[in-house]
């Protein structure tokens, strides 16, 4: 395809809570949770951060990284499960905050954890057809896990923005393929504060079915196999699922290592594999080939094949890397965490 990633930017809030801290409150065994999920700690938003502020910071990092002229951005799509408004887009605030208004189209996306990658596909189409010069796709969340529920250990906060274009690509998007069915493995009803999930049902019929179908579908269409890739990123609700699906598909643990950020970050939902991709781009070299497959409950997966260009070196240091964003966190206890996540009803 003629389109690719022109720039990217990530943002992770400074606060973290350790799995042990949460387990203590509910009388659970921290070690078995850490072993079971392969997650040590997760990010927590500050009192004045939300999906919009995170999306703006990620978008600004993407703009700064490659010195993009925001007036050239023709579309912005922000995908999230925690948009601050049920009606009024996050994307208009982002557009205003990066100086891309008013000659632009925007809208918000929702498809559980794959809203961001769906936005990437939309931008790809608009750029490929010449409808716009540059498109921005953002996946950002301040995900909620119900107190005492398994998801509370992993529901994290973070966001990533990708700018898609034709000129000056740092990674060409060779192809994309999606696999979608109506599979209710995880959802949240309007007005409800926390999501519901199907427990073990989210595994086989949800995650594994869709990720592997999309991955196999893309490789079949392209005639590629796992060994053709340097790196692979799979949606990371925890550390176990992507490790297992990688093995199932024939990818090695070395290939998924740079992109596997969930143990130190938690699941940033719409930002999840986009964060893993950013971490991979932070260290990739020209000529590296990257495979990525997202997963959104409901359910669907978007698979992508990227080819890194030599321009990556030129723009790499223009914004903080994922490692820099993960460094020097501030650890908080459960009480502070509950205050930050508005779990205490005032």
């Amino acid at each position, binding site marked *: 395809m003629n389109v690719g990633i022109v720039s990217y930017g990530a943002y992770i809030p400074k606060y973290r809570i350790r799995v042990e801290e949460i387990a203590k409150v509910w009388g659970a065994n921290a070690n078995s949770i850490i072993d079971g999920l392969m997650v040590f700690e997760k990010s927590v938003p500050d009192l*004045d951060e939300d999906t919009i502020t995170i999306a*703006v910071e990620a978008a600004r990092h993407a703009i700064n990284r490659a010195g993009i002229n925001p007036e050239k951005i023709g579309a912005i799509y922000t995908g999230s499960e925690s948009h601050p408004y049920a009606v009024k887009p996050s994307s208009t605030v982002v557009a205003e905050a990066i*100086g891309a208004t008013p000659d632009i189209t925007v809208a918000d996306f929702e498809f559980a954890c794959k809203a961001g990658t769906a936005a990437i596909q939309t931008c790809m189409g608009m750029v490929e057809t010449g409808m716009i010069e540059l498109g921005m796709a953002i996946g950002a969340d301040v995900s909620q896990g119900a107190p005492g529920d398994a998801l509370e250990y992993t529901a994290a906060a973070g966001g990533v923005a990708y700018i898609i274009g034709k000129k000056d690509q740092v990674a060409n998007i060779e192809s994309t393929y999606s696999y979608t069915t109506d599979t209710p493995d995880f959802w949240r009803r309007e007005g409800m504060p926390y999501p519901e999930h199907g427990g073990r049902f989210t595994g086989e019929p949800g995650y594994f079915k869709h990720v592997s179908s999309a991955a196999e579908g893309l490789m079949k269409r392209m005639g590629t196999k796992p060994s053709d890739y340097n790196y692979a990123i799979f949606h990371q609700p925890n550390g176990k699922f992507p490790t297992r699906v990688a093995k199932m598909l024939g990818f090695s643990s070395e290939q998924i290592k740079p992109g596997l950020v969930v143990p130190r970050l938690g699941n940033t939902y719409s930002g999840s594999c986009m964060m893993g991709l950013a971490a991979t781009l932070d260290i990739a070299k020209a000529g590296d080939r990257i495979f990525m497959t997202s997963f959104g409950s409901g359910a669907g997966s978007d698979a992508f094949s990227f080819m890194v260009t030599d321009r990556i070196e030129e723009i790499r240091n223009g914004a903080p890397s994922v490692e820099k964003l993960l460094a*020097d966190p501030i650890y908080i206890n459960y009480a502070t965490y509950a205050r930050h996540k508005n779990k205490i009803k005032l």
Partner: protein
Amino acid sequence: MSVPRFWRRLKNLYNLIGTHCEKCGGFFYPPRNMCPKCRRNGIVNPFKFKGAGVVVTYTIVHTAAKDYAKLTPYILAIIQLDEGPRLTSQVICDHSHIHIGLRVKSAFRRLGEESDKGMIYYGTKFVPMEPKP
């Protein structure tokens, strides 16, 4: 603050857009349409500030009203932007790290909300330029 009032100042708050008098070279944030030095003779145009500055003075607010009570204790500061003007804002940093002379940069944050049914106000706060040593 009512919706139209906040909306009028949106761009200024989100992007630190103030004004600049071409006549005397004065920089103004918050924006002013009337240059205090040149008054009617001034030539005043919009200007986007870089967002870098230094803390001139600060306090830690423990008692606040309404919406801001959710954030206490928070750091309120007067910051001098590199281009010259001073503004009032919050600084998000460790309370033991805030000091007069701290170099700061802009960050996009929630300023508050009208109510849980009402409008959310976004804008610029500041964070230390360098992480705490």
